[in-house]
């Protein structure tokens, strides 16, 4: 029998479902305008960005394709001496050459992961390569990455819900709440 999740870790709501939906709709309209003549491929990073990706894609009234990738994490790899570098755990299924690729991220923080993703995807010669993130902490950036579309600039806190997890839990909350750790 598994222990039920500790909901006491969920703090106050930072962004409710309505606020998220409204901003996602705005981003969708903006992207729709910018890519009207494009060949849009939305690329999302598992698992955190899945909810944002699904809502954003439905807010863009254009023919588009979607693909997903998974990236290793420092947190999981740090104890393994043979896994000391970031890598694709699941690669994209679509070729990128000549496509207008929009990387859909849940959060851009230090920019280290995104820097690796953009460098890797850039080698596949897309026609354009841009980034859309739900949450942004520009003041924590270490690497320079250009974020074309940003949903919300957030404070220096940890969050759960709307794709964000704490030990793989709480991603399915429809809102974004502070994590009390």
């Amino acid at each position, binding site marked *: 029998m598994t222990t039920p999740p500790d909901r006491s870790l969920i703090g106050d709501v930072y962004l409710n479902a309505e606020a998220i939906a409204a901003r996602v709709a705005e981003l969708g309209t903006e992207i729709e305008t910018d890519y009207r003549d494009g060949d849009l491929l939305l690329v999302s990073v598992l698992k955190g960005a899945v909810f944002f990706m699904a809502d954003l894609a439905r807010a863009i009234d254009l023919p588009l394709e979607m693909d997903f990738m998974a990236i290793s994490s420092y947190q999981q790899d740090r104890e393994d001496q043979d896994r000391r570098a970031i890598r694709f755990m699941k690669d994209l299924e679509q070729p990128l050459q000549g496509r207008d690729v929009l990387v859909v991220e849940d959060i851009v923080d230090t920019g280290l992961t995104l820097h*690796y993703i953009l460098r890797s995807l850039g080698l596949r010669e897309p026609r354009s390569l841009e980034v859309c993130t739900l949450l942004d902490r520009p003041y924590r950036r270490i690497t*320079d990455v250009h974020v074309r579309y940003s949903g919300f600039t957030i404070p220096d806190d940890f969050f759960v819900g709307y794709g964000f997890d704490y030990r793989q839990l709480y991603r399915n909350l429809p809102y974004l709440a502070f994590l009390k750790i």
Partner: protein
Amino acid sequence: MSEETPTFSYYRGTTPPKFVTPTERQAAEILDYYRVPWEYEPRTFVLEQEANGNIVEAFTPDFYLPDLDLYIEVTQMKQALVTAKNRKVRRLRELHPEIRIKLLYKRDFIQLAKKYDLSLPS
């Protein structure tokens, strides 16, 4: 430092890095994991010099990231005690406006530590 220095794949210096603090080593490990080439203390900037050439004050940032043309200084000092380091960074920017440098404070590293599940030096 007593802990053994791990093998780095993206270190671009010529001699093995000798980190002064655990925080520096952890920062190096994170950069290396993310395949960001880095150098450790590759350059010392003279901040103040006497007329006879004696160096009064100098500053050696901890890291240089050649691909990003960016220097990084990490500090694990308490926020209230970083005034001197802030001043050095400010002076460096005055003397070398072309130099890009980022100062990572203790609070930044605490957040990084939470994000990457690092053990923080006390």
